[in-house]
């Protein structure tokens, strides 16, 4: 992402401008503002980013309230079939699924607010539960990517030698597959029989797959930065003091790459949610009976001509979520490191 606006370009320089005069010479304390507080202050003034942060929180809260909606308003579970039932629309009883198998469209009432699917399941309930699934998978995948990517980058970049010789080609290898196709291959292979005790339709399978597929997108840039940092004087100083490699990696180098990691975090989250949608849309992600925004879009596609809301409502939720994460991420990047070159492919 290189969406820096011209007025933000000098923002990184603000940190430096305190330096030229020695404030102690004038006999007063310098205003002690660290780079983190400075970034926080910049972020607080970014009202667009704050608005989208609020939107993201709202979506998360809505999805977390799914059981409340399901129990108290819709009175039906996310995976409860109801093919033969009826629902009253404007005082008339209508079949939830017509005799020819076509599900009912939005009723805009408490039951079947957004209509049903071919099994007679309430789409509004599934939309909220699906959102939970999408966010959960995105969150777990992001955690995996952040931990593995940082670890791989630190190890390969600092230890070099044999470790780098093994890790770098591995990252290069994952990198040479388009993320969707690698995710799809792993997804279908695991959906067939699961792995070990984990069942094929477990939500952890797509989460771990996405986690593995995106590791190089963080690991490669971190490695590059660590390679540059390890030649610097403060690392030599730490080494001379007798620090071991692990301590240098985690207490000397890690703090110096932390702003990069934070800049990447929202971007990785956004792309993990997107990739989950791609995989689920293609049938290699979340498996039945669970729903996610990706599977809901895919399930609604056959009815796009007659009832476009089936696909477009979960689609809108997906886009709003990913967009809000991306905008917040952009704000974080502008606040921390405006010149960062960050890119993740889907």
């Amino acid at each position, binding site marked *: 992402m290189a969406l820096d606006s011209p007025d933000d370009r000098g923002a990184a320089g603000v940190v430096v401008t305190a330096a030229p005069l020695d404030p102690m010479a004038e006999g007063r304390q310098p205003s002690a503002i660290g780079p983190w507080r400075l970034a926080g202050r910049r972020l607080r003034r970014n009202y667009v980013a704050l608005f989208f942060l609020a939107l993201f929180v709202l979506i998360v809260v809505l999805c977390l309230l799914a059981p409340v909606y399901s129990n108290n308003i819709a009175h039906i579970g996310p995976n409860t079939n109801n093919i033969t039932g009826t629902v009253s629309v404007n005082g008339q009883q209508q079949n939830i699924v017509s005799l020819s198998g076509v599900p009912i469209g939005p009723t805009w009432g408490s039951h079947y607010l957004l209509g049903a699917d071919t099994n007679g399941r309430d789409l509004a309930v599934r939309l909220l539960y699906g959102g939970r699934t999408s966010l959960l998978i995105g969150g777990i995948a992001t955690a995996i990517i952040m931990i593995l990517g940082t670890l791989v980058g630190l190890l390969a970049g600092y230890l070099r030698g044999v470790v780098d010789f093994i890790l770098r080609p591995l990252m290069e290898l994952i990198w040479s597959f388009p993320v969707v196709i690698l995710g799809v291959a792993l997804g279908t292979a695991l959906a067939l029989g699961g792995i070990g005790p984990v069942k094929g339709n477990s939500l952890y399978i797509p989460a771990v797959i996405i986690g593995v597929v995106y590791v190089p997108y963080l690991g490669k840039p971190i490695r590059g930065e660590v390679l540059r940092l390890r030649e610097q004087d403060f690392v030599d100083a730490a080494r001379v003091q007798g620090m071991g490699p692990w301590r240098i990696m985690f207490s000397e180098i890690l703090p110096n790459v932390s702003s990069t990691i934070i800049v990447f975090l929202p971007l990785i989250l956004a792309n993990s949610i997107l990739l989950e949608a791609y995989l689920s849309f293609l049938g290699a992600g979340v498996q039945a009976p669970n729903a996610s925004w990706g599977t809901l879009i895919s399930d609604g596609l056959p009815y*796009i001509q007659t009832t476009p809301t089936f696909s477009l409502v979960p689609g809108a939720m997906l886009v709003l979520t990913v967009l809000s994460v991306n905008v917040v991420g952009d704000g974080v990047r502008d606040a921390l490191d405006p010149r960062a070159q960050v890119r993740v492919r889907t």
Partner: protein
Amino acid sequence: MTGFIARRTVSAILLLFATSVVVFGIFEVIPSYNPARAIAGRNATATTVAEISQKFGFDKPIWVQYGNTMKLIFTGQIIDYQDNLNVVSQFVHRFPVTLSLVVPAAILWMLVAIVLGSISARRAGGLLDRGLMVAAITGVSIPVFLLAATLLYLFAFRLTWFPNTGYVQFGSNPAQWAYHLILPWLSIAVLSIGFYSRVLRGNALDVVNQDFVRTARAKGLTQRQVFTRHVLRNSLMPIVTLFGLDFATLLGGAALVTETVFNLPGIGQYEAQAIGNLDVPPIMVGAMFTAFFVVLFSALSDVVYALLDPRIRITG
């Protein structure tokens, strides 16, 4: 230069070999998945499974199986489990459809991005510039299949300006070919235009401050000449690398979902159907096929880059 190309070729070949091992490994080594059982179906007896296992060679050691699978793929004899179709000939047969989807879409997005990026670089901070910033961040937040579905609903079903699905061969009627493909092209191109024009704009603004631009101005070139001959040319280089990888990625991502939504009979649709049926061989060939393009394009763009910029050859 020959040395650089040789090194790059060797590493590309090694990488390709590794990708084939990975793809094979994903489907054959991952436990609790028995391909013979998948072919035999849900209610097969143990003897049927054993027979199939023997017929397809699933009972052999893993490296023998790898060799056999690769032999089947490269001699074009591998068949899918679902319809017993020859996978390689399906790919060959369907590839023109996929090419007529991704190539014009890529040209469209590149051209529009260059034009919009140039304008917004020359008028940084202007209305178009701000608009593109919004377009870029929105573009990376929308999955291609959702835009495709939305366009299909709006322009094909609601407004009926364009046909809803189907594919007409270029040879039989070029006008109808383009008419049927406009919506798919837009689905792929629109989302990338914002991002690419932003990257181009960023590069151009960096180049503008360099000495050779001042020299060009000082020797009396017009603004337009300075921009097209010096600024634009130098700011295109990073985009070309980006484009090389993204174009190869199209084959393994956007093509799958776009062809599914618009019902285009390309390799993407074939792969997407195979995923739905848990049909391994087409997914395997598809993964190797797209990885081949990613490796090829990244090697090509490295070589092109090295041709243009001699400094890279040494550090390689």
